[in-house]
């Protein structure tokens, strides 16, 4: 198996049964902008029948956007898509399906409590039989389709009772039963075990033999060598490399993925760490994980791929989700943080990743949001809020952090993203938190607002607060942090000095390349 994979990776000739329907799916100079971001800028890309074309890049490089354009979820702003030289217009998921383009997303699109057979023919039950749907017929057809992929899944079982890997197979089977010629897979191995990954790769190899063109998106570079023929690297919405996997070294690929210019988007920082404020010892079972230590006046960055478990770790730390046996020491004493309220009372606050879903009460005013953490302190007898003090505190923060709004009584939903983010942060500062976790604090806010956020982070650390910064923006993380921890598959696998490291080194650890290189 291993030598076989290497052979393939070297691009040795192999038998290939080209499907008569096969053709080249190609994107020509595709561009797509979202408010404030140029997601794709003139990207050309193609996939041929019977090949696996890997698409890699940092978080936010434009991979998902590309996928969404191909699957008809978003229209492109400019550029053409062709199949075998003929231009096609993909203006909806149904059209994509009809053209033979199927997407297997990370979140599987199956109806959990329907049977495998029902899922396979969802929306096209009529193909099985008109009028009443005969279960016998349906199951027989389903067994055929599954059998074609060499699967022995019982078609009568509800999908929810299958494992993730089997569910994925059902989705692939569904795509193929719809005569998909191009299969786009978004991080298909993210939730699989080692053994299941092998199974998936076998199936992918078989599909390639059958002439299916596969676009394979992954963060895990070690996988590319095993299954991909070609690789294209996206960075900031543009193609920076495209070529045969056999012709390029993995280290070079990493260098190509990262290396966005840092420029002067970041205010200068002089690290001045004080005493240890927070220490989180990993659960004993995580043997390769190290303790996280945060000092006063320090900005500690957590680097990792999306889904590496940084956000989950932060939620456990503040007691928002149940702990996994980590031991937390705050101001030198061991604490068991049972709830976000407990964390708040200790002086640990979190600005969550999902600003609107988890950070703000959108139906309330700026003032109400800012003072939400200190209602108990604003109370006079009988639980009455001292409205004057509330307004004073709120105005003071609005002025100091230049939260731009007509006045602090307006609905927080009317503010821009950057100002909303400041409101979420401010509510923890109002509570005088000593440790603050910022989870993707600059996501979706414009460049000017980002700079303000960085300045604010520096100010906080000057005041002696400890900041934990979670960000998928590597230049930001490296520039704004004093020290970095690298999270890989839930473990804190490395600690780096942010002054001395490079984006490349960080990415090497984050993508698990260190493991692969060592093993």
């Amino acid at each position: 198996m291993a030598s076989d994979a290497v052979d393939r990776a070297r691009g040795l000739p192999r038998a290939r049964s080209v499907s008569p329907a096969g053709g080249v799916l190609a994107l020509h100079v595709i561009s797509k902008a979202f408010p404030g971001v140029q997601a794709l800028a003139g990207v050309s890309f193609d996939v041929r029948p019977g090949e696996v074309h890997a698409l890699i890049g940092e978080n936010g490089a434009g991979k998902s956007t590309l996928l969404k354009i191909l699957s008809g979820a978003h229209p492109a702003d400019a550029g053409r898509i062709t199949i075998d030289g003929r231009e096609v217009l993909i203006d909806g998921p149904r059209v994509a399906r009809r053209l033979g383009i199927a997407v297997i997303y990370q979140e599987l699109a199956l109806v959990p409590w329907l049977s495998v057979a029902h899922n396979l023919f969802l929306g096209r039950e009529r193909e099985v039989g008109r009028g009443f749907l005969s279960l016998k017929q349906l199951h027989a057809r389903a067994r055929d389709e599954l059998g074609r992929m060499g699967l022995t899944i019982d078609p009568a079982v509800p999908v929810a009772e299958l494992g993730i890997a089997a569910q994925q197979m059902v989705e692939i089977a569904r795509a193929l039963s719809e005569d998909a010629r191009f299969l786009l897979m978004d991080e298909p191995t993210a939730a699989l075990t080692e053994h299941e990954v092998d199974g998936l790769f076998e199936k992918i190899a078989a599909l390639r033999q059958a002439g299916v063109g596969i676009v394979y998106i992954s963060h895990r570079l070690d996988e590319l060598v095993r299954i991909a023929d070609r690789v294209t690297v996206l960075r900031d919405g543009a193609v920076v490399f495209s070529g045969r996997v056999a012709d390029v070294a993995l280290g070079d690929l990493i260098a190509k993925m990262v290396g966005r210019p840092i420029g002067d988007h970041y205010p200068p920082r002089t690290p001045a760490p004080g005493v240890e404020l927070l220490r989180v010892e990993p659960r004993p079972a995580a043997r390769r994980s190290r303790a996280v230590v945060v000092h006063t006046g320090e900005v500690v960055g957590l680097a990792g791929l999306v889904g590496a478990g940084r956000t989950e770790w932060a939620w456990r730390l503040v007691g928002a989700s149940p702990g996994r046996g980590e031991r937390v020491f705050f101001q030198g004493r061991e604490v068991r943080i049972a709830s976000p309220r407990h964390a708040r009372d200790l002086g640990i606050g979190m600005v969550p990743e999902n600003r609107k879903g988890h950070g703000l009460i959108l139906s309330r005013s700026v003032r109400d949001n800012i003072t939400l953490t200190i209602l108990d302190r604003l109370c006079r007898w009988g639980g009455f809020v001292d409205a004057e003090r509330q307004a004073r505190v709120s105005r003071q923060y609005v002025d100091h952090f230049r939260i731009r709004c007509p006045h602090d009584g307006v609905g927080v939903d009317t503010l821009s993203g950057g100002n909303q983010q400041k409101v979420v942060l401010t509510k923890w500062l109002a509570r005088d938190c000593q440790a603050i976790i910022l989870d993707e604090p600059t996501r979706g806010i414009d460049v000017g607002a980002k700079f303000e956020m960085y300045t604010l982070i520096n100010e906080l650390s000057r005041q002696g607060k400890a900041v934990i910064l979670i960000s998928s923006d590597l230049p930001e993380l490296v520039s704004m942090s004093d020290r970095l921890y690298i999270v890989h598959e839930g473990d804190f696998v490395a600690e780096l000095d942010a002054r001395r490291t490079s984006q490349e080194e960080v990415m090497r650890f984050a993508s698990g390349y260190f493991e692969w290189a060592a093993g």
Partner: protein
Amino acid sequence: MSPSPGRWFTQVLARYGSIVMLVVLLLGMSLATPEFSKLSNLLNVARQVSIVAIIATGMTFVIITAGIDLSVGSLVALTGCIAMTVIDRFGWDYVGVLAGIMVGGLGGAANGILIAWARVPPFICTLGALTVFRGLALIVTSGVPIIKFEGSFRYIGQGVVWGIPVPIVIMAAVALVMQIVLRRTAFGAQVYAVGGNEEASRLTGIKVAWVKFWAYVICGLLSGLAGMVLMARLSSAQPAVGEGMELDAIAAVVLGGTSLMGGRGSVWNTLVGALVIGVLNNGMNLLGVHSHFQLVAKGVIIVLAVLLDAYLKKKR
């Protein structure tokens, strides 16, 4: 840049829609029938509205937390039956009335515990409670109304202060106090926060479960109070009374422009909503609309009003 008149008009409508609706209705009814605008009739409308308005005030708290309480109508009956039993057996009017209100609070607390901690969906939980409370009311009275034409308890339903019927005074006092609780206390702020975004509230350190619990307790207590007023007005406890009252209360809240999604709303708006329903009922009675048609008209108007409200808010 001043907004165009049309835009200004939609903004006013969107913001003060329920009040505009009430004023239009009041004017329309006055023109349609001279009987309507007589002081005695207006007081009559207010008194008729008072019971639903008191319940709807509690319902406002529950709905702002993005919940619902379907059990209030049954609770009105149950609290009345228990209070009257105490009054009838022992002749302790005050104790009876207090007991009735307390039972309301307990009923609300039962709902609150199941919803806040056991996480039973509010609709299901209070739907069950609706049946349970009605059944308890029938058990307490053996299904027979208790009628009592004397006793000081009747004052809260039939008394008059400075020419104003006591139920109206109670309604006004409840609305005033509860509006202050909602707007001026930390608890009120937390009610809005929990309804606006439960997860954000939890992450901010608000005791979400307790806030929900107290919202249902308040709703129960006020249902109990409404039960006392109704019992006193009728000079009797009737286990079958209050059926469908939960729907009137919810309609009042919704007509006030409060979203069932939670996070928004005020007691004032609910009061206006309750008055709209009262004026509709009264006006149609005076106009001689057949009661069967009244039901249809009322339902249609409620849905139209909410549609219009949603449309205007979107436009704004």
